[in-house]
Structure formats: C-alpha cells, structure tokens
C-alpha cells in the first residue's frame, strides 16, 4: 500500500506532464495526419492521401536517409570525442576536476545564436582565419571556410553535443569501483587490457545514453541547418517546417513528423540490438 502511494506521488506529476504535453500533442498530430487540410471545404474529412503522397515522394525519403546519416555521424563522433574527455575528468584531472567540468559547461550558458555568429566571424570571408591566410600570402582571394555546407552542420552539431554526451559517460565512469582496476592490475592486466576488459564495459550504459542523447534530437534539427547549412545543408526537419509554416499543410507535416518518429524508433531498435550492447552493459 505504502509502496503504491510512493509510486503514484513520484510518477504522477511527471507522468501527467508527459501525458498532457507529449502524448496528447502526439495524438493530435496522429489525428491531423488523416485530414485533408486545415482550412477550406471538407478539410476535416478522413483521408489516406497524405500517407500515400509521403510514400511516393522520393525526395522526402532521400532527405530522411541523409538526415539519419548526419545524426549518426554527429552522435558517433560526439561520443568518440566525449569519451576521452570524460575519462580524463574522472581518472586524471584530480583536484582540477570541478574547474574543468565548469569550463566544459560554460559555453552552453551563452546563447546558441551568439555562438554561431561568432563562428561566422572566425570562418567568414572577412573573418579572423581568412585575414590571417591573406596576410601570410597563402590565399589571394578570401572565401568562407567550412561554413555554408553539410559538413558545417555536422561540425556545429558535434560542438553543441559533446558536453551533453560527456555528462552521462562521466557519471558512468565515476561509478566504477576503483578497486576493480587495482584487482585487474594485481592479476597482471596491462593498463590497456584493464581498460578494455573493465572500464569500457562498465561505462557502456553511459556511452549508450550519451549516444542516443545526441542522436534523437539531431535527426529533427532545423535551426542549425538554417544558420550554417547554406544551400546544401538542409535537413529533414526543415522540410517538416516548410509543410507546417509555409505550405500550411499540417496534415502532411504530421505524416512527415510521424515518419521521423518511426525512423528514430527503428534506429534505436537496430542500434540496441547491434552487438547486443545491452547484454554487455548488463541490463
């Protein structure tokens, strides 16, 4: 009895919140996806036309695949970069740990837009980098470096996500009982063996959490592509925005959003099965 009371008081508020602001809107979107439009005659008749036109529209599919590629690249590279960072903080930083941790978080305190604009100041035609190259005589004409491309979208997103991926890895590494590593050493493990057989497997839950932390939101990204993507960086999220805000076709936008949701679930399913990560991690 007491247990149930505790369960309800703990799960109730967040559950209700998620129900109202996550499940309900998702339901509204689901209903909208079967409608003909948002205005005009017969806009609320039931139709499967939106699904049909989604299935036949190959450039939606191409862009969804492309966006999935971008977000896989972003989350993989972010994880690879974040791991040594978290490792250093936990095992090597010692007394500097808090300072370094703060330094890692500080950039996220400034506005995202401001950070992007300062990137442009560095990499743009009149930017710091171009001025340097020009004065060194390495280039004759300046042009934007790196920005305005799909590559720029990936680089920017990695920059944004590394701290967030590092946090769960940090937490996982910190939980590791240091005596296990001592035991490994006593039993004749070389440091890299101890890492491969003790540290890495035990930190897997953190890696998986961090990886998905970056993967899921980046698939629907539309702001970063607008700012640094130039003419070739558009992502699937931009197309959804176009349907909602420009074509005023909420039903089509809903179908596209639901398709993305399915794509995310599919990716998560595949990735969790891949190499049975969950077994390794022990859950």
């Amino acid at each position: 009895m007491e247990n149930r009371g505790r369960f309800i008081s703990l799960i109730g508020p967040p559950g209700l919140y998620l129900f109202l602001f996550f499940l309900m809107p998702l339901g509204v979107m689901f209903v909208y996806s079967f409608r003909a439009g948002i205005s005009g005659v017969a806009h609320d008749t039931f139709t499967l036309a939106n699904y049909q036109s989604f299935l036949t529209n190959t450039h939606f599919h191409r862009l969804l695949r492309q966006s999935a590629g971008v977000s896989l690249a972003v989350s993989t590279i972010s994880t690879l970069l974040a791991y040594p960072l978290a490792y250093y903080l936990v095992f090597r930083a010692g007394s500097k740990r808090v300072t370094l941790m703060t330094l890692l978080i500080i950039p996220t305190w400034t506005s995202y837009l401001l950070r992007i604009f300062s990137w442009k100041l560095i990499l743009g035609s009149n930017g710091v980098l171009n001025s340097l190259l020009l004065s060194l005589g390495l280039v004759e004409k300046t042009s934007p470096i790196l920005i305005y491309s799909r590559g720029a979208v990936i680089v920017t997103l990695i920059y944004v996500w590394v701290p967030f991926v590092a946090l769960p890895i940090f937490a996982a590494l910190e939980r590791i009982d240091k005596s296990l590593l001592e035991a490994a050493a006593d039993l004749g493990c070389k440091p890299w063996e101890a890492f491969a057989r003790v540290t890495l497997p035990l930190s897997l839950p953190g890696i998986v959490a961090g990886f998905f932390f970056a993967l899921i939101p980046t698939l629907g990204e539309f702001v970063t592509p607008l700012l640094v993507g130039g003419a070739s960086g558009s992502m699937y999220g931009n197309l959804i925005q176009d349907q909602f805000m420009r074509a005023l076709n909420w039903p089509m936008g809903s179908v596209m959003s639901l398709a993305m949701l399915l794509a995310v679930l599919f990716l998560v399913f595949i990735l969790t099965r891949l190499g049975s990560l969950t077994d390794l991690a022990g859950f």
Partner: protein
Amino acid sequence: MRTQRIHWMTLSILVVVSLLLAACAAPAAPTAAPVATEAPAAATEAPVVTEAPAPTTGSLILLDWASYEAPDYWTTFAKAYPDVKVDFSFMSESADSYAKLKSGFKADTVHPCSNFWKIMADENMLAPLDTSKMKNWKDVSPSLAAQGAFGGKQYWAPYEWGFEGILVRKDLVQKVPESWADLWDPQYKGHVAFYDSGETAHIVAARVLGFDPWKTTPEQDEQIKQKLLELMPNVLTIWSSQTELEQMIASGDVWVAASAWNATYINMINQGLDVVYLNPKEGRMGYLCGFAIPATSTNYDLALAMIDSYLDPTSQAKFANDMGYGISNNAALPMVKIPAAAVEGLGMDNAEIISKTMFYQYLTPEQRQAWTDVWSEVKTSK
C-alpha cells in the same frame, strides 16, 4: 513479469485515451470563432464617439514583425493608455502569422502582407475595422485601403509597403548584375543569397522565363522547377531572417542578395558599405502589409486604438525615416526625410520603378502547396 505487463497496459490505455481526447479536441481547433460578426456589429451600432471609448486598462498582444515593437511607432497609444500592458509576439513571415492564429494563438492585432489578406478575411478569422473610430483613417491612401476591403468591409489597415529587390556589394563583384536573370550568371557562383520562400522562388523564376507567375501551366511549372535547380550551384545560402542576411552581406560572404528589403539597404549604407539596390530589367517585386484584428480578440477597442496609433502621421514618418519603407498615411509623407541617397537608391519616389514593380498577389492554397513542394525539393537537391 507481472508488473511489467501492468505497465504496458497502463501505457497502452494512456495512448488510447490520449488519441480519443485528441480526436475530440482536434476538430474544434481550425474552425473560426463565431465572435467575428458580433464584435463589429456592436461597434457600428454604437453612436459615433469622438473620444476614445476603449477601456483604459487591460493588455494587448500584438503579433508583429521584429523591430516594429519600438514604442516610437505607437507613441500616441502609449500616451493615451499608459496603464495598458502591451506585449509583442513575433512572426517570421506572413504564413507564420496565419498558422499561429489557426493553431489558436490569441492576438489582438496581426500584421501579414497582402497575399494573406483575402484568405484570412474569407475564413472569418478577422473582425472588420470600425474605421469611423479611427482618427487617422481619413488620411490613409484610398488605393492602398481598397486592397484591404473584402465584401464591402474594411478588414485591413494598410501600414507599409516596400520592395523586394537585388542588393549587390558593388566593391566585390566584377560586374554589377542588371536583371533577375543575372542571378544565374556563373560569375556570382557561391555568393548569391536567396530568400527561403517557395512563393518568391516561383515568382522570380517565372518572371525570368517570361511567364505570368500566378497563371502558370503545368508545363511552365516544370520549366520553373528546372530553372530553379539550375540556380542552386550559384546559391551560397538560403536566408530567412533579415539580421542573418545583413550579417552575411557585411561579412562579404554574400555579394548578391536576392529579395533584400528596403531596410536592409538602409542598414547597409548606414554601415558605410558600397552597395547598390538594383532596378532589375524585369522590375522589382513589392509587397504591402498592414494590420487587422483577429476575430478571437477580446480587446477590440484597444486593438483599434493601437492600429490608429500606428497610423499616426508623426509615428509613421518616424518609421519611414528609420526603415526606408513606403507608408500608407498621406499626411505623414511631408515629414519623411530619409537621406537623399536612400530615397534615390531605393527609388521610393520614382513612379516608373513603382509601376514596373510586381506586387505579391493572393495565391490559392493549391498554388501555395505546389510552390512550396517544388522549393522544398529544389533547395534540398544539392
């Protein structure tokens, strides 16, 4: 195992319930509120009062463009109603304001351009303006006002008009372009900024190909799509916010900015940049924007007073001087003193340029959909 099954059951019940709720809730959203006809009726029956009849306290929400919120542009309202709280919510484009109102956003004024005026009036989203209560209405240009009247009712108060043209960094290009068709010239490769709008893209390409943009045949639509695909290699970026565009012009990344607005030209010459605002062979594009009161507004009188305040000659002149846009109040024109270079550069007083300008027109939902889809495909082709 059993607890897990219970969790799944709870979850599925939640999903089903939320779907049912959503199904019930959704149909209500898009229908227009019936208030539409009530508010104005009450307003017109009331005897003509000269003093402002609006309540002196309360709050207003203005769905407006960024940078139009400066109190300089509504000084008379601020003076007359110091206790009214005025909040601004920003729209990024006309379609955005329509979508926000449709989704149930409650605003007291809305400020899209004339390509959205008819659809919003047709769908009963607006309360007609009681112009007899507006002190400044008598000075509003009749030809502009006429564009905001539908079915004998004045729904829109025209406020500003402007150009969409091509802005060029003269110091960076070898040769200054002369037409919209020059956007395709390979010498500008990688330095063209294009506006992120299917409507604009369609119109620009149609004009370059010599079609009437609003009456294209399916074959012409296909040609327009091909033409736009050919433009993409020249395009550095697709811009959607004025600030972002200005930053890219100033940094030298963008040499040729398509669909740049008057204010961008003014801001660039104020920064001392060597820019020119083209008078392309095909003519510029133009737009007219203005205010209306959404039918769902519960502050009709205050909203009307606010619109009237925006139309005040002194405020409108101030706005024109700051932004370089054309304005609707003829009484304000003598007070407009934007720098001579800007007037000349923009050609705001040049009848020939204005007559060659193609103003945005109403487009059907089918056109909006088709043009957006083409643009979505084109801009993601690279």
